[in-house]
Every structure is written in C-alpha cells, then in structure tokens.
C-alpha cells in the first residue's frame, strides 16, 4: 500500500527524442490521417514544424526505465488501474525536439471504492522541457490501486 511518504519523490530525468517515424506511427494508430503529421513541407509552412498528437507524450514509455520512476512507495502493480490522464501544453512540441522529462509523485490519496474496497490514488506529474530549456508540457496521471485484485 502506498502512503503519503512518497509525495514529492522524483525520478531521474530522462531524455526523449521526438522522432517523425514514431509520430506517423502514432497518428495512424489513433486513426488520424491529418496531413500535418505526414507532410513536412505543409507542417513547416502552417506550424513551423511537424507537430505531435495530443497524447503523444505517452510514448515516453520508450525512453524511461525504472530509474526515471520516482518509486511508488509500495504500490502493488498487479492491482493498478489507469484512472485518469491529463496533459497541459505551454509551448509547441515538434519533430526533431529533444525533451527532458522528470516524474514526481504529486499526491497520494485514499478513497472508499465500490467493488474493490478501499482504493489508493497515486498522482504523478511529469514535466517536459525542450532543448531550449523551455517548459513545454505537463503530464498528470492518476493511478488507482484497488483494495483487491482487479476483476472484469
């Protein structure tokens, strides 16, 4: 069971290169044929570069390892559900950017759940900075640890 002592813990910063192949693959996976993801000249003219899909920062999974995670203070990963996800954007992110991400435990809350009994909510925040040192985005995830193993 996670507890409040995890709040404020941060993981090791990780690097994420924004690669055009991954952007194209991701846009196809979410069924978005918008030419701005596929036509470099058009994207450059309209936006100044090839943009990334709104939820593309999820691909940070390819750039992180256990050291980038702040350590979830005893969270049982077999009983974890992804409850909520939020992204805030402060500056554009383009193909070719090199981002640095740092994940921290923002909060740990206890809640009375329905089927699963007592739930613990773990809220993590990952802040992304680009190669110019500009803060570009914040990704906030709410993970739910249920009181017992999750069933369908």
């Amino acid at each position, binding site marked *: 069971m996670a507890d409040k002592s995890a709040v404020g813990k941060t993981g090791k910063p990780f690097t994420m290169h924004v690669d055009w192949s*991954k952007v194209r*693959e*991701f846009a*196809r*996976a*979410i*069924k*978005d044929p*918008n*030419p*701005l*993801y596929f036509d470099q000249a058009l994207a450059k003219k*309209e*936006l100044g570069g090839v*943009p990334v*899909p*709104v*939820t593309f920062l*999820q*691909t*940070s*999974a*390819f750039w992180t390892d256990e050291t980038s995670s702040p350590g979830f203070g005893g969270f049982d990963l077999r009983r974890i*559900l*992804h*409850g*909520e*996800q*939020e*992204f*805030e*954007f402060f500056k*554009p992110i383009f193909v070719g950017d090199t981002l640095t991400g740092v994940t921290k435990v923002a909060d740990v809350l206890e809640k009375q759940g329905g089927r699963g009994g007592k739930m613990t909510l773990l809220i993590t925040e990952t802040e992304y900075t680009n190669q110019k040192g500009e803060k570009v985005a914040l990704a906030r995830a709410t993970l739910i640890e249920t009181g017992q193993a999750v*069933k*369908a």
Partner: protein
Amino acid sequence: MAAKLKFESVKVGDEIPKFEVKGVTRPDFVRYAGASGDFVPLHYDQTFVEAAGIPTVFAQGMYTAGLLSKALTDYVGIGNVRRFQVRFATRVWPGDVVICTGKVTNKVEKNGEKQIEGELSVLNQKGEPAIKGSFRAACA
C-alpha cells in the same frame, strides 16, 4: 488542419463534430501498443486475460483517448490544444462502436490568449461512457 477557430463565432453549447469508429478491433489495440509502448498484456494476449478471468482483451484507455483527441484537433486545429484531460469509465471491447464527442462550455481569456473550454466524452453503442473528459484550446 491547423486553422484556429474564430473566438467570436464560437458559442457556448457548440458541439464538437462526432468522430465515430464503427467497431474497434484487436489489431487496433496491437497497433496502439506498438505505437505507444504500452505493452500491458491485457490488451492483446487472450491467454493472459482468460487466466485473469476476463473474457477477452480490451482497449488501452489511452487508445480510446487518442481517438477522442483526434475529434478534438479536427475541431480546434492541431497545435491549439492547451489542456486535455480524460477519466476512464467503462471498458471498450473488440467490436464496440466508439463515439467521440464534446461541447464548448466556456469562453475565457487566459495568458493573453482567447480560449475555449469544454467537456469531452466517448460513448459506446449502448450509450455508456468509456471516457469523460475536458479540454481547453486556443482560438483566433
């Protein structure tokens, strides 16, 4: 495309044009797993899910959220989303119809920018919510 909505012409209550996927498939989930790096086996490994007492694989929440984000950027233009938030409700199963929609609930000026705020939802063919969410986006 990237064109911003005109702030003056957007009204509170305006609806985001529906984006509907008529039957999501297991290959859709596999493709999203590869694209995103989310390899939780619940979404593609039938042997694994049956052993866990679940009848079949189901969609990654963030796959469905990705479809919803496409509905949003089709409306507000790519590059204009300032905030995107989703909360997961019922699971999405292979064959489900996924209906992404939303509406404008507020018009604001924030950080010197004209912006709209709104709610988002993904419903299945039974009208059950798979996702409830919200957004903020820049306008011209």
